[in-house]
């Protein structure tokens, strides 16, 4: 029994050592584990920004009175808009079609009269529905600007009354920088890439090259083969994650308010389903091309689209919301964002970790049944 255990340890260390050599020597693993994360991080750090400041809009003043000029001034002073003033809506129609402006506002003829008669004056907002993000933004912020202006006017008129001002406070991401929540989110994408894509491809490669078959014909067990892959890619995944965190904090100045322990505990838990999925894919396809396609479709894309990373889950159709329950990344991303932006919230973290480990166990159980030292 002792000799058996010694053999097992030796086989396992040999497999891990072999895998490490391969990782270091194979340009594609370096590419996926180091270069791709860097590209993603830079993309989300610099390139993609969901912040909208200084959106170009047009403002049509159909009448020029001190009141409308005052309202126009408050649009011009807003840091969300970059306003061009005009007097006819036709001046902006073309600009909107050509996407030179995000929308335009019309202060209609009779605005001042309506206002003094307290008849709820209307401001028309015309936006490009083909670009819903900008359209929503212009619409909401225009409404906000108008109501702020109204409140201010009311306050000025009732000089005696306490001026009522709405003061907005954003917690956790006061500058409302999208970078601050995109970067933590992209770390989970990076771990999906290493855990699922890279792992499924390296195992599929072993099937393709016949090395898997040669290994299986030795006294090695399926568990040892599995562990020999898990350990190196688990560590590689954590390595990629660490690299991303260092860049996020020191280069992009994303705050880090939680603990290192929470970061690693969550990441480690997430790597389990990611690796399990990679294993399952390679065991089923045994072909690098198919494996990469499946990994992208079933791992990368859901982590990207259905995890709350970019799109708010609550605003998805109900069916999609249910589907998103099966995407491990959705349990990681909120926790990871908390680690960065809020701090340690252990009850939330523990729940995530529990769910992720559960996913991992199920995926591994299926994968090992499929690999079990059999070729067919």
């Amino acid at each position, binding site marked *: 029994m002792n000799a058996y255990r010694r053999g097992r340890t030796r086989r396992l260390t*040999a497999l891990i050592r072999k895998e490490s050599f391969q990782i270091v020597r194979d340009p594609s693993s370096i590419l996926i584990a180091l270069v791709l994360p860097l590209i993603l991080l830079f993309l989300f750090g610099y390139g993609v920004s969901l912040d909208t400041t200084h959106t170009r809009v047009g403002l049509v003043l159909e009448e020029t009175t001190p009141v409308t000029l005052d309202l126009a001034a408050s649009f011009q002073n807003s840091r969300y808009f970059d306003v061009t003033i005009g007097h006819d809506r036709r001046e902006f129609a073309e600009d909107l079609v050509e996407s030179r402006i995000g929308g335009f506002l019309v202060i209609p003829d009779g605005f001042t009269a309506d206002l003094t008669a307290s008849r709820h004056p209307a401001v028309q907002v015309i936006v490009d529905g083909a670009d819903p993000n900008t359209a929503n933004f212009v619409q909401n912020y225009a409404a906000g600007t108008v109501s702020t202006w109204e409140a201010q006017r009311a306050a000025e008129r009732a000089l005696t009354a306490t001026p009522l001002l709405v003061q907005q406070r954003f917690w956790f991401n006061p500058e409302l920088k999208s970078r601050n929540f995109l970067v933590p989110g992209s770390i989970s994408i990076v771990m999906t890439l290493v855990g699922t894509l890279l792992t499924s491809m390296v195992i599929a490669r072993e099937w393709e090259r016949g090395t898997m078959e040669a290994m299986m014909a030795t006294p090695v067990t399926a568990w040892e083969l599995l562990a020999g892959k898990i350990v190196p890619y688990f560590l590689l995944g954590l390595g990629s994650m660490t690299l991303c965190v260092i860049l996020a904090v020191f280069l992009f100045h994303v705050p880090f308010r939680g603990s290192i322990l929470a970061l690693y505990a969550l990441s480690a838990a997430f790597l389990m389903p990611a690796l399990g999925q990679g294993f399952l894919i390679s065991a089923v396809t045994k072909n690098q091309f198919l494996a990469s396609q499946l990994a992208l479709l079933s791992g990368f894309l859901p982590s990207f689209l259905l995890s709350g990373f970019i799109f708010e889950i609550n605003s998805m159709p109900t069916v999609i919301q249910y589907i998103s329950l099966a995407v491990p990344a959705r349990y990681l991303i909120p926790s990871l964002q908390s680690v960065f932006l809020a701090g340690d919230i252990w009850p939330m973290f523990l729940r995530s970790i529990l769910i992720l480990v559960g996913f991992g166990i199920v995926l591994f159980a299926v994968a090992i049944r499929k690999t079990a030292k059999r070729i067919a």
Partner: protein
Amino acid sequence: MSPAVTEDKPVLVRLDGVVKRFGDGVPALDEVSGDIRGGEITGLVGPDGAGKTTLIRLLTGLMQPDAGRITVLGHDARTEAPAIQAAIGYMPQRFGLYEDLSVQENLDLYADMRGLPRRDRPAVFGELLTFTDLKRFTGRLAGKLSGGMKQKLGLACALIRKPRLLLLDEPGVGVDPISRRELWKMVENLTAEGIGVVWSTAYLDEAEACDNVLLMNAGKLLYAGTPSGLTERVKGRVRRLTGIEGSRRRLLARLLDEDKVVDGVIQGEAIRLVLVEEDDVDSVAKTAGTDASHLVPATPRFEDAFVDMLGGGPSGRSALAEAQAPRAIDDGWPVIEARGLTKRFGDFTAADHITFDIPRGQIFGLLGPNGAGKSTTFKMLCGLLKPTEGEGRVAGFDLRRDAAEARNRLGYMAQKFSLYGDLSVGQNLDFFAGVYGLAGRRRQERITLMLNIFDLKKHATMSAKDLPLGLKQRLALAAAVMHEPEALFLDEPTSGVDPITRREFWTHINGLVEKGVTVLVTTHFMDEAEYCDRISLIYRGKSIALGSPDDLKAKVATADRPDPTMEDAFIALIEASEQEAAA
């Protein structure tokens, strides 16, 4: 080795009514029973798809039979796979090496996997590295080794823990004859220590050298016993027809349709025949228009017996050739020309001033080990690679300036049949017809003709990837000749296919050549080389010999080897070239 001696050797593997199915079709293995003994080489022989790999995997316990019983080294393969895996050595196809690990790292890995104690390692590694002559290369990555060296390393890894049974799955594939001979000698030494070796192969000449063979075809065991026991059945019936006047190809076609001829192939200037009866010599000679003295008795070979067992070769008539309009044939006009073709990749010269020309209606062979430069030369001539230097012409068109024109006049059949696996047979033909610019009625006519000639009609809606190998090969040829090309380029056209399909294929090619089609073929298959009118032997990028198969054989004939085979010629010429290079 005589059968009597074999009886004393211990039985290592016993197969009893083994059946293995994949899906609903024909079983991959159908009621296979037989023994494999220690201390000898058992050849597991048969064309691709015969069931060789499946049988080997069953022996390793990596697959389970659907019925029957397999006992390996006293263990049941179904229930005691781990015990079997601990005691065997297995080299899968492509050798099972990690290409980005060095030679030493591969050895270390397998030593760890098989639990070779550390104190034994220096001795074992030393012995294996000497044995395989890899001592100088321990630091080199396995991926950077030549095919022959990879194969030796694969063998070394399989031998780490001196197994009692060594399973080698097609060790001869992708390896040149010289390395193949070396490996054979190494394996023979192992049998002296009592190790049982299973050597699977599609090359029938390898089978002849085995102590025992299991001959498989389409999942069935056709024969189990010594190779001589099999060749016994054609004893006295094998003859070489020499001194042929006129076209040997036309004569062969006629002879194959003779009732008294079981099989016939071209062998250089001669024709090799297997007769139905020993006494048929006179009547066959009469058909050939010669007398019996020209029908020289020949030593029966394994392939003669195999074809005889399968019921004889196919007819000598090629419907394909008959449908083809003849071209002027004896004008001696060179349809394919290579003038100092040179290709360099960086500082490596893959092809070095290759020059030859092929007159209309001839078959020209490029022969050589893997990586020698024959594929490079071939690719330059069909316009797939731009030569660094020199020029090539096909049908008078310069491949540099008029590559498209030239390509329109040639048909190309790539190694491993480059068909679209997900398209049906009909769709593949339609696609290739389109590629070659056939349109309208002619397109329909040609497609229908191809379906008829190659008997593909009932498979027309089947996906190409699901076809059996023999049919794939037919479809590939159909796609290549659809537009009646003047020149046909064949890249290892029949490697791995069964001998009947190979004969069918060459019947078509011979027929086309008689109609004035010019053929360039690359091969490392010695039997295919025999079909050529002339051969260029390519080695290390250079043409080291050029001549007819008989010329090349005559070059290496010696007093103790008066009648060398093509393989003997191949090896001797390469060795001579090496000595010259060393001097």
